[in-house]
């Protein structure tokens, strides 16, 4: 295992923000931390790479303890933090070249590596630009390139696509897929369902600092919700609640509509029953991670 976290706790005063998180990550695997804001994702990731000191528990990276053997652990990891901490005092190229020196990569080797990475992330034409001349998407690419300067075996991506436009997100996803294919372990935190579903081999769902469920995206969807959901508008909760009991399924009011998990054996029967009542809106779609999250936590990922 390239990353192993055992019983991680973080307490500030009498408030525990991370409570007993344990998991492992293999080489070539993308593991996603999915949770609403304040669920403890960033604090947990901080403990994994050493920026947050755990109140209890330990983390090992390729067998090296992140606290007691931090230098060796950080030698083989790359970190993309939530905030852009690129060096505004240097050009795009020098951001990579000089960052390489912190890994003992200097001179021609550093220049070559910086050039390679800029090409790889599509920033070859921006080498001489100042960092503040880059768009948000290009900056995120540069942060990723910088995190790869040491050819890490493990990469932390903490909400790497927040604030990016759809095209930039797609580009970023392509790079993450390449990392995975190259055998790099990737830990991704996100509150974008499509990102988690598209990129992650496995997901940990966090709520209030605890892992409330884990598995592959499809497993989580199927085991928690099923194949499909129905969205109903314009019917009273009092009318729908008895239905849930009758069809032995789960449902919940979400905003203006009611969301109902389609029971595997009596799905068509439920659909016909609802259609016959001619509600203002009725639709049926495939279940997704947002539905999983709603069922497990009682609120949407977008709710703070």
């Amino acid at each position, binding site marked *: 295992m390239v990353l192993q976290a055992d019983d991680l706790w973080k307490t500030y005063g009498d408030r525990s923000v991370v409570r007993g998180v344990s998991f492992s990550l293999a*080489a070539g695997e993308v593991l996603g931390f999915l949770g609403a804001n304040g669920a403890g994702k960033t604090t947990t990731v901080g403990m994994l790479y050493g920026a947050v000191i755990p109140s209890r528990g330990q983390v090992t990276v390729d067998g090296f303890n992140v606290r007691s053997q931090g230098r060796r652990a950080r030698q083989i990891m790359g970190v993309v933090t939530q905030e852009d901490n690129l060096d505004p*005092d240097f050009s795009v190229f020098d951001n990579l070249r000089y960052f390489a020196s912190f890994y003992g990569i200097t001179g021609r080797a550093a220049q070559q590596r910086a050039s390679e990475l800029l090409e790889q992330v599509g920033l070859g034409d921006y080498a001489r630009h100042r960092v503040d001349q880059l768009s948000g998407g290009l900056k995120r690419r540069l942060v990723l390139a910088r995190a790869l300067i040491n050819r*890490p075996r493990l990469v932390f991506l903490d909400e790497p696509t927040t604030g990016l436009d759809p095209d930039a997100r797609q580009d970023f996803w392509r790079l993450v897929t390449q990392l995975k294919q190259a055998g790099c372990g990737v830990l991704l935190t996100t509150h974008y369902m499509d990102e988690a579903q598209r990129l992650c081999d496995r997901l940990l769902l966090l709520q209030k600092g605890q892992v409330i469920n884990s598995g592959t995206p499809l497993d989580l969807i199927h085991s928690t919700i099923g194949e499909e959901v129905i969205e109903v508008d314009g019917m009273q909760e009092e009318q729908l609640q008895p239905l849930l009991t009758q069809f032995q399924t789960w449902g919940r009011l979400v905003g203006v509509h009611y969301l109902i998990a389609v029971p595997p054996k009596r799905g068509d029967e439920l659909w016909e029953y609802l259609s016959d009542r001619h509600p203002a809106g009725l639709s049926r779609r495939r279940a997704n991670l947002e539905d999983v999250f709603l069922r497990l936590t009682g609120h949407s990922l977008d709710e703070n």
Partner: protein
Amino acid sequence: MKTDFTPFTPTQNPPSQAPLTPWGVYAAWQRNARVYQATWLVNSLPPLSEPLIYLVAFGYGLTPLVGEISYYGTTVDYLRFLAPGMMGIGVLFQSYSEGAYASYLRLDYQKTWHAILTTPLTFSEVFTGELLWAATKGMIAALATGLLAILWGLMSITTLVLSIPLLLLGSVAFAGAGLLTAGLVRTIDQINVPIYLLIVPMFTLCGTYFPRETLPSPLLEVAGLLPLSLLVDLLRWPLGLPDHLPWALLGLLGWAIASIFLAWRTIYPRLFR
């Protein structure tokens, strides 16, 4: 095509686990030196122009009025008295402002410290690299002033060379005070508080422009304990050797140790929660 993302195999020569290595300190120091180097022409202006302006202004402006000064039983030309004071001021301003303003920006705005701490460098190395870089800025200013004083005929080369350890101690002390400020303040405007409560009073009252003996008590005693007074007294060793000089050396060392220790204690919790 073989991708460039292929991870490295574990290194044959694992890095040292010691929290403070010369390589790590140098790497952190070098980051700032590279920024300085890129704009060296602009950067070399303040340490050269500032003392030159003061020496010219005071040299031509005050020397005819002041003439000579009595310093611990020795009569010296005013400019020969002023030159070590100017070196001390160069150390104070450059080391302190680099530690306070520039390090604060790298700590709080640019998050440069945070970025470097994701690499194999340790907190001790980044902190020491920053401290030594701020001290380097003070040394550059002091040596530039010293060279001007030598060219002016106010100081010998030997005096300047022998003063280097004292300048280094002063630079480290003020760099530590600067980093302590960076660790304490929460907004950049707050740096004005120590500037106006400590730095400007030191600049004017610590015997840089005139002998402190003319100050009334207890201002005299208080000013005498401030680190700039201690540094300037030490730097005037060729002009006079007052009895308190060994205490001045110990005092400056104490200021340096205390400021570095407290800076360490204030910055660490801002990086590691």
